[in-house]
């Protein structure tokens, strides 16, 4: 431990501001580390970054406008395409919002299955985040290990609903399909397998790799005050030591029935709220998700029809609702206004990745170009959600 601190201290970025003669550097939209089509306009002095302006909108597909022309069941597949790494969670948020508006009670079995798939999808999404976080820093192997394990989850989803990425699985009032025979056992076996993988493979290879720590510790520090002020949510907020998780603090579905803890960053290797903390929170959250999945599978009712409560026609009552759920990236809010017709009047989405990206300029002053890549990797953005 002492050695690690020495290593970090010895290689600190010099505390010197840029001297005024700046070069504009366009990072993206075709850049390997912008996680999609994001363009960062960097003002650089040598390798040092003075300011960053993110330019977004390359993936804008008029999601919100489309919603005004579609009935709620038709909107569900569109929500898949926002945060395409966590489609189940997007589905869930929208379904919960509509059900609250309708005052619809869904069967117990549906609630449990929803939690299982949402948490599985959270693990799959975090695996991509962790893998690419390492890949951005040049660690090739953890990326492939993460994708290998994610593949297993995608195989489950394929077996459950036929799709591997964009599921349209969680419907308003129910689910599209029941779990096939023997699915529970497969998922439980995966939980055991994967928990060992985190401890024996991911942590030694990447999390506590000296170079990885050296690259991430003390970089892109977000104080708890800054995190609140910029509206960060999800692992990016909890990485700063703020214990806030909508699954616990504004419970939806049946999350209040499970025993689990909200993981926060502690500044284990560097400073509180640095890139490594944001990374580490994701690793810890995967373990908590495994525990939730185990509990849900143990308690779930076996009998029942998952389409039982699906309304034949969804007609949202007059009124409006803001419903927020915790996706892997943070607070996903659906603001739905209805005037009582078949189509919603307006659907507005509060995308977590959008707010998380906003802070990048604030925390990157004086960082090196390599650090910007590390910070962006730890913020874990998905452009499909930012641009919608």
């Amino acid at each position: 431990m002492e050695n690690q601190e020495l290593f970090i201290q010895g290689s600190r970025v010099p505390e010197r501001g840029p001297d005024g003669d700046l070069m504009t550097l366009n990072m993206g939209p075709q850049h390997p580390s912008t996680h999609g089509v994001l363009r960062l306009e960097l003002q650089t002095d040598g390798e040092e970054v003075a300011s960053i302006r993110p330019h977004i909108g390359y993936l804008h597909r008029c999601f919100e406008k489309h919603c005004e022309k579609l009935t709620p069941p038709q909107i569900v597949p569109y929500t898949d395409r926002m945060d395409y790494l966590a489609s189940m969670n997007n589905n869930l948020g929208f379904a919960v919002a509509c059900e609250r508006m309708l005052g619809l009670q869904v069967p117990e079995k549906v609630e449990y299955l929803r939690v299982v798939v949402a948490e599985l999808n959270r693990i799959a999404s975090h695996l991509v985040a962790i893998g690419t976080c390492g890949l951005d820093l040049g660690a090739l192997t953890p990326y492939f290990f993460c994708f290998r394990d994610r593949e297993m989850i995608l195989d489950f989803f394929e077996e459950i609903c036929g799709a591997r990425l964009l599921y349209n699985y969680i419907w308003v009032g129910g689910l599209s399909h029941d779990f096939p025979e023997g699915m529970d056992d497969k998922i439980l076996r995966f939980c055991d397998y994967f928990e060992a993988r985190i401890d024996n493979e991911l942590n030694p290879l990447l999390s506590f790799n000296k170079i990885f720590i050296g690259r991430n510790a003390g970089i892109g520090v977000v104080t708890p005050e800054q995190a609140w002020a910029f509206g960060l949510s999800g692992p990016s907020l909890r990485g700063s030591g703020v214990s806030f998780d909508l699954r616990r603090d504004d419970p939806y579905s049946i999350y209040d029935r499970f025993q689990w803890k909200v993981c926060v960053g502690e500044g284990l290797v560097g400073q509180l709220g640095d890139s490594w903390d944001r990374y580490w929170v994701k690793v810890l959250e995967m373990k908590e998700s495994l525990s939730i999945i185990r509990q849900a599978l143990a308690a779930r009712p076996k009998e029942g029809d998952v389409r039982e409560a699906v309304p034949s026609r969804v007609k949202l009552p007059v009124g409006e609702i803001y419903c927020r759920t915790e996706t892997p990236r943070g607070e996903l809010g659906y603001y739905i206004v209805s005037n009582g017709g078949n189509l919603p009047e307006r659907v507005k989405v509060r995308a977590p990745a959008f707010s998380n990206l906003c802070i990048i300029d604030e925390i990157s002053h004086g960082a090196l170009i390599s650090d910007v890549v590390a910070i962006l990797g730890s913020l874990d953005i998905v452009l499909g959600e930012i641009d919608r």
Partner: protein
Amino acid sequence: MTELMQTFWFWAPFSAVVIAIVITVNALFSVYMERKVSAWMQDRLGPMENGPHGILQTLIDAVKLLLKEDIIARGIDRPLFKLAPYIVFGASFAVFAVTPFADGHAAADLNVGIFFALAISAFVVAGIMMAGWSSNNKWSLYGAMRSVAQAVSYEVPISLVVLSVVMVSGSMSMQEICVSQAGGFWNWHGLSLHHNPFLVLGFLIYFIASLAEVNRTPFDLPEAESELVGGYHTEYSGMRFALFFLSEYANMLAVGMLATVLFLGGWQPLHPALGFIPGPLWLFGKAYGFVLLQMWIRMTLPRLRVDQLMHVCWKVLVPAAMGVLVLGGLWELLIG
């Protein structure tokens, strides 16, 4: 006629052709090896489609590169841009000229062989700088600047360590250095704790610094694809890109060969009793051991940041190499 056949100039063209073949085959082999080794380490299969176990994949890729259009974008400094790959390739090519492949077999057994190898490999830096500068691309420029800073810095510990080896062997000829390590692996500089233990430390320093010299992880900053897109060769395509690629793999082997010659006895067999196995096999076997090690490290470690890179060089490796030089010299003077 016999006199003529003994001169260097008579044999030079043949040597050049042989080395060119060695380099090309090495690139084909190393790329395939890297793909397969990395695949096995990452729970993948690697290339499987072309030929048995994808053995023809690299060859097909080479053909593709040869047939591709050679794009030179507008705004590029054409003469420099066109010249750069040849300089880089030429420099890595020339290192092989002084490498002894077997007892009495080297294209040119210069009496300053190791000095020549260091000097000519430093020339790569010039080519990379030309490539980065002439590309008229900011990412290329960043890659080139990093590469130059890195290569120039890491030459210092390498030179210091090589100097200690020269001091112990008493010669700068690479053939002589090999000969001085005769008689089994316990006499190799890199392993001989009883002859001069400081050279064992020197071996370690040389290996770390040589990773930086050939831009391998964790020192692959100049071509860090996740930061700098493609580094100094971002703007290159087709055959010119292939030349950079070729020289990169040639450098990997060259560094492995230098390490073998300096510290692991070059073409000397593991044990005198194994002397019936020809020298080149020993040399290439050991050198590819190093290449494998480089690949293994690449698959294991992330990349350092540029300030950490300089920290490792100037605050760790250079003082250590200096210590090896001084203490190794004292040992040689008093005990050796």
